[in-house]
């Protein structure tokens, strides 16, 4: 499914360039499908680390030894808090060291919980600080809001232990939880208490688990996406076409946002954006619903794309991803569908992240024929 996944053996281990990191930030924001937080501050940190002579190394997951220990990292919390309490690599490293101390063993590599948004860049900061290689994989292939919405949760892997750090001297270890949902509920409470932003190290994975259950090559996919968008911008060509040219994605709609409705319920930002068609879509209307991320898009009343297929809303001119928290009347956007990681197409996968997991009474149908259940 992922044509980008084909890599030559010589590229199994490569030092990312500063340009790769720039591209990663753009690509991760696109794959964030509206959530995951703007990667800008993490990109800034990476620029400073690179200027200081540090760099991040990307490794092919298939080169991991079966018993390798891999740290799964993410920043947890409200994107808005991140605008005032800025990302800091030393802070991202804290829960990694906590986990190593707890396990009594050093990590062999680190990886992203989610490639979408700022969390796609997050493990790069730790990699650049420590020299740990970053695995070319994540557990979502996009961004999702909750702990049970990952490939490793769908596979039924162990959900603990989890370490969490605050910028003050507060450190929290969650040695055990009954299920992924319980881990989500308990860790979310703690996160809220320390200011709705926390650096975390999720349940560690073995090399074998990553190879079998990770969403593979998602980092190179994000870098390739970002590279094409940045090239299109520099050459003043259409960045949307650039995205489509290197993915098996489809353009679902082009238009301008004429209405945005938002409400916060049960810890989610829910709502919908109404988009009026332009160009080839003149006279048509698309309504995109979101729950932190974009979940279902309706064309003239009929559902046409739904989670776990990726719904990406991009600025039509710049190709920049648009977060659900900054959607605004008058924006000119293109709506793209990208295929879901295959792990989410199983019965268990759809139970975790299909339309019903987000409150839509719809049977999943994919935009992409090969993904039909």
């Amino acid at each position, binding site marked *: 499914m992922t044509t980008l996944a084909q890599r030559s053996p010589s590229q199994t281990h490569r030092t990312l360039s500063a340009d790769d990191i720039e591209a990663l930030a753009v690509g991760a924001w696109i794959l964030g499908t509206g959530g995951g937080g703007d990667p800008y501050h993490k990109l800034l940190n990476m620029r400073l680390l690179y200027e200081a002579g540090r760099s991040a190394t990307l490794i092919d997951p298939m080169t991991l030894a079966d018993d390798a220990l891999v740290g799964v990292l993410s920043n947890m919390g409200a994107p808005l808090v991140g605008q005032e309490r800025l990302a800091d690599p030393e802070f991202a490293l804290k829960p990694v060291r906590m986990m190593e101390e707890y396990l009594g063993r050093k990590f062999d590599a680190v990886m992203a919980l989610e490639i979408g948004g700022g969390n796609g860049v997050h493990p790069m900061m730790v990699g650049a600080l420590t020299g740990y290689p970053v695995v070319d994989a994540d557990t979502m292939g996009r961004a999702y809001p909750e702990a049970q919405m990952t490939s490793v949760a769908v596979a039924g892997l162990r959900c603990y232990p989890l370490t969490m750090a605050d910028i*003050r001297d507060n450190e929290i270890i969650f040695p055990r939880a009954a299920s992924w949902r319980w881990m989500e509920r308990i860790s979310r409470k703690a996160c809220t208490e320390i200011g709705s932003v926390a650096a975390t190290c999720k349940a560690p994975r073995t090399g074998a688990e990553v190879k079998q259950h990770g969403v593979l090559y998602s980092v190179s996919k994000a870098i390739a996406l970002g590279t094409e968008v940045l090239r299109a911008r520099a050459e003043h060509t259409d960045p949307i076409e650039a995205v489509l040219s290197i993915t098996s994605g489809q353009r679902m709609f082009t238009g301008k946002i004429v209405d945005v409705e938002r409400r*916060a319920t049960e810890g989610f930002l829910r709502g919908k954006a109404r988009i009026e068609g332009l160009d080839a879509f003149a006279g048509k209307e698309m309504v995109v619903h979101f729950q932190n991320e974009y979940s279902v898009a309706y064309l003239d009343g009929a559902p046409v794309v739904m989670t776990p297929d990726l719904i990406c809303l991009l600025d039509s001119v710049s190709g920049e991803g648009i977060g659900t928290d*900054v959607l605004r009347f008058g924006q000119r956007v293109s709506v793209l569908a990208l295929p879901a990681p295959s792990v989410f197409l199983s019965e268990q996968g759809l139970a975790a992240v299909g339309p019903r997991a987000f409150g839509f009474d719809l049977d999943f149908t994919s935009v992409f024929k090969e993904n039909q259940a």
Partner: protein
Amino acid sequence: MKRIGIDVGGTNTDAALLDGDRVVAAVKTFTTADVTTGVRTALKDVIAKAGPAADDVVAVMIGTTHFTNAVVERRNLGRAAAIRVSLPASASLVPFCDWPKDLAAKVNGGIYLVQGGHEYDGRPLMPMDEKAVAEAARKIAADGVGAVAISATFSPLTAECEERAAEIVRNEAPDVHVTMSSTLGRIGLLERENVALMNASLIGLARETTQAFVDAVADSGLGAQLFITQNDGTVVKAEAAREYPVFSFASGPTNSMRGAALLAGIENAMVCDVGGTTADIGCLVNGFPREANNVVEVGGVRTLFRMPDLLSIAVGGGTKIGRDPVTVGPESVGYRLAQEAMVFGGAQVTATDIAVASGLIRLGDTSRVAELPKDFVAAALKKMHENIAEGVDRMKTDATEVPLLAVGGGAMLIPDAMPGISEVIHVEHNEVANAVGAAMAQISGETDRIYRDMDRDEAIAHAREAAIDAAVASGADRATVKVIDVEDLPLSYLPGRAIRTRVRVVGDAAAMRAEVPA
């Protein structure tokens, strides 16, 4: 009530004297290197032209691109130190970290991070390290740095840390000018701090420029009060502008669109301003330009400024027209129109030549374009019309037909009819629309805060009161203040039904209302 609007642009300094909504006199003069001379000349000329009608002018409103140009051209900037109250948070991304290196080198007067700040819910993050603030203040003074920007985590919610830090700096270093980031609004520490730093570095220039404007008005013999126009189409008293030059950054295009609204007497419309190089298309909502949503960069620095959402397309009076095949732009002859256009004796076919050949305007030597093939002229005009119509359609936000206001020196290039437009209105005095816009500017207030454990209506009511108080503090007449924008965003993940609410209000200047007999 009479007032004079002045727009100090890169090329021209325009002035318009208004009586109520009526333009009594308007003049165009050249901008001078010192800015002040141009303003004096424009004032003198417009007063002379208006005659006795200029006697009871109560206010002069000046819009200027002077401060933006200082940042963009890296000149007349002072050194500014940064005190950020945020530790242990945000330590890796220090002030100036995302500035262009040349600009940072010029402005950076020292970086001081100290412990303190607040959480999203108003709890202190850590107690503020007052000793560290005092030490920083003494060092800044010892270094001879004249201004400091103070920022603190979540200061738009509670400015406690910034206010206390400012007090300490004033005690320790009374000669150092203080800009608090919370006075410049909005959530987003890095961008808010950037704006505060720019403000601090412009303080010297702002004091000088504002004083020059004050002197120019005093010398004119008018007993008028001076206001400076701001990015959002409103004004502040000169004293306030002296403290906050960054608020006057983008007044040019805003004034032009606001002026068009007044001249046409229409508050909701599209505006197409055709200049020498581009046509700028914007959208007026309730008499104000719709604002761009994206982060705005000034001189390469990310800011939270609200700027008008403009689409610039390559159709202007100087736009080069090609033949075989017929092309429109994107190159323009620019300020060399008077030499290079065919009607002025040049060899280049420009949009102006097409307008003359089509009989849309009489200009220069019309015989020089008489030989241009009729089908070429028609095709070129058709293409310009199509480009403008397409740009207008892109900027429209709903399908309802709205009027389009045609302004600028190249307004004759705008087609009389286009899809989605009810009528195209060519307004009188459109060549000084920017000065007219400055003259009619109002006073605004804005809040952007997070409220907790409140329902939506209650939160908006609180925000509205705070915005109105801010407007009145800036000189608005409370009785005339009205809400022009409300935006609310429920915050996911945060407990206690948190809601971020932004309210913007405008009102007439109290000083001007006082002149109206009861």
